[in-house]
């Protein structure tokens, strides 16, 4: 059983790095879905399974909503980029992972002494990597995905601090609301692109 949280942390780190590095919306969506699996495992360490599974279902629902919107709008799978920018994101991600491994023990001892170290590492990992992704992108899809990842990271840490049905419900509302907002913004942007392309063809 000890290996399960470690496995969850590994899943979160790999998924977080994939979300940061990849430009393919399909890979990012899959990575986010996998990341929610890690979130579920970590949250279930402090919450009953039946409540922890809410995080998993909500996360998957939100991911599906965004992914199906991209699919419906035939969003191009990858966008051209230079190797240098790919390398930069990879190195920046590794730096964040390293930094969080170094800082987590002191965060635990000074701020969250009652929270398991692996929860702090998992939560901060998602927060750090998602903030980096957020800072590097300005399109709706990556921004919304980053916000999902950011919230998931926070929820992992907060779950260890407080257990409340209302809070869980409110987080569900916020996550699904964010998904709907993301869908709205993606549709809005894609429609504008399509309209301007039609105009160019004429």
């Amino acid at each position, binding site marked *: 059983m000890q290996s399960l949280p470690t496995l969850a942390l590994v899943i979160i780190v790999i998924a977080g790095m994939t979300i940061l590095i990849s430009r393919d919306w399909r890979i990012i969506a899959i990575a986010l879905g996998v990341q929610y699996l890690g979130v579920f495992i970590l949250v279930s360490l402090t919450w009953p399974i039946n409540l922890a599974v809410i995080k998993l279902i909500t996360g998957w629902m939100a991911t599906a909503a965004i992914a199906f919107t991209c699919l419906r709008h035939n969003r191009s799978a990858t966008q051209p980029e230079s190797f240098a920018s790919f390398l930069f994101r990879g190195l920046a991600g590794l730096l964040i992972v390293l930094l969080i491994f170094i800082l987590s023990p002191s965060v635990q001892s000074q701020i969250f002494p009652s929270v398991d170290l692996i929860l702090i590492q998992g939560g901060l990992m998602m927060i750090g990597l998602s903030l980096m992704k957020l800072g590097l992108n300005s399109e709706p899809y990556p*921004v919304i995905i980053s916000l999902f990842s950011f919230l998931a990271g926070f929820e992992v840490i*907060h779950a260890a*601090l407080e257990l409340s*049905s209302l809070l869980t419900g*409110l987080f569900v509302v916020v996550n699904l609301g964010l998904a709907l907002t993301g869908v709205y913004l993606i549709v809005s942007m894609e429609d504008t692109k399509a309209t301007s392309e039609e105009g160019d063809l004429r």
Partner: protein
Amino acid sequence: MIMSTPVIWVIFPIIVAGICIFLSSRRRLTMAIASLTAFVLALLAAFFPEELNISIGPLAITLVESLHVLGRKLNLIYGMFPMIALIYGTTGLWLLTSNLPGVPKAFQPASLVIAATITAALGVEPFLYAALFIETAVLISVPMLTSLGGDKNQGILRYLSLMTIAMPFILIAGWLLSGVVTLPSDSPLIGQSAVVLGLGFAIWLAVFPFHNWVPMVSQTSHPVVSSFLLFILPTGILVFGLNFLNRYGFLRSSETLFNIIRITGALMIAFGGVLTAAQDLLKRAFGFSALTEIGYSLLALGMASEGGIIWLLLMFPARALGYWLWGYTLSRFESNYDVPLNLDVIQGDGRRVPILSTGLILAQLSVAGLPLLASFPIKIALLTQAMVESKVLGGWSLFGALGLFLFSIRVLLSLYHPGDFETQQPLLPKESFLIYLPVILAIGLLVVLGLFPGKLFSGIINTLSAFPQLQ
């Protein structure tokens, strides 16, 4: 009949918003329903008797102040009623203009739901959960800020990102604060909690350097929508913030904290004022003016021990009226031009549409704090007190206030100075009674508020009864 206050002021408007969505093709009807609902709720909150019992013929209605939801409470107490009245009254006012050209369909239901969620945020127990209600209000506001087909979403994405990032700070700060109450006053954890809390509120209130979404959203959204959002959201957040001061004695007694709030407020006034004065785009200038107003709120909060919280509360109605008039007149101007509104575009409009132009200028001057207008009595008191506290603090605040005046003068000169563009511009339609009546009424109210401060809307001060430690 027994009803609970959250059912009336939180659940009922959400149901009405749902009805508005179903009837969205009939915009006049939905406008009437939504604004009527908001005004009725405002009047109920303003005039409901303190014993929470009323009889209408044979029907006796008794209100209870709480509603249990999933093991927690939504608790809208009588002391919060003046603030609820303000929230719904101003929402109703903005809803009256929701049929103006270009206002997104989503505005009517979204504004009602935003009012409901902010009301819920003021009453949820534990009060920290309010952060999630405010985040919900933010998410609901996104569709009304943009419309399908809009490509200028950068400001909205920044707004969404920053507001979402702020929420965890508030939740974590609340958790930390609940633990530090019993600690000795020199514990480092107290400072850490205050920093986390301050960061959360700074992001929420668009304090520099987290401000850049405000002018962007203001520039790209419809003026009616952006003026509503820039009023309702900071108001809700500031009142929610009073909870922290009310509950935690060590925050209340921290001179350092109030100094920081005061300095931040003065810098925001100076920053917003200078940038407003430098703007050519009218909608963007409104965004920077909103930052100045947030600065005034922070300055008032920072002077809590000198009665600043009363000034903070009294500023809300005057600000609402100024913003509303600003949003209304800007949207009327905007509907006549295909290009972004700037000082060149509006040259000469003061002669063609004098009443609208006067409305625009007076809205700006009221927000700036011109004598005889609504904000003046509060702002002069605030600036005087700031000057008494520290010449530097008062000086910077005054400097920022002058920036707003400078911009108003630039707009005035542009409106009444015929320029080269005049002959190329389309002529604005002749001002009809229905267009200028709201302007005249709003100007009249701005003047009455300025001439007789404390006579109208002074009941808002009673909100303090919900915060017994701050009285």
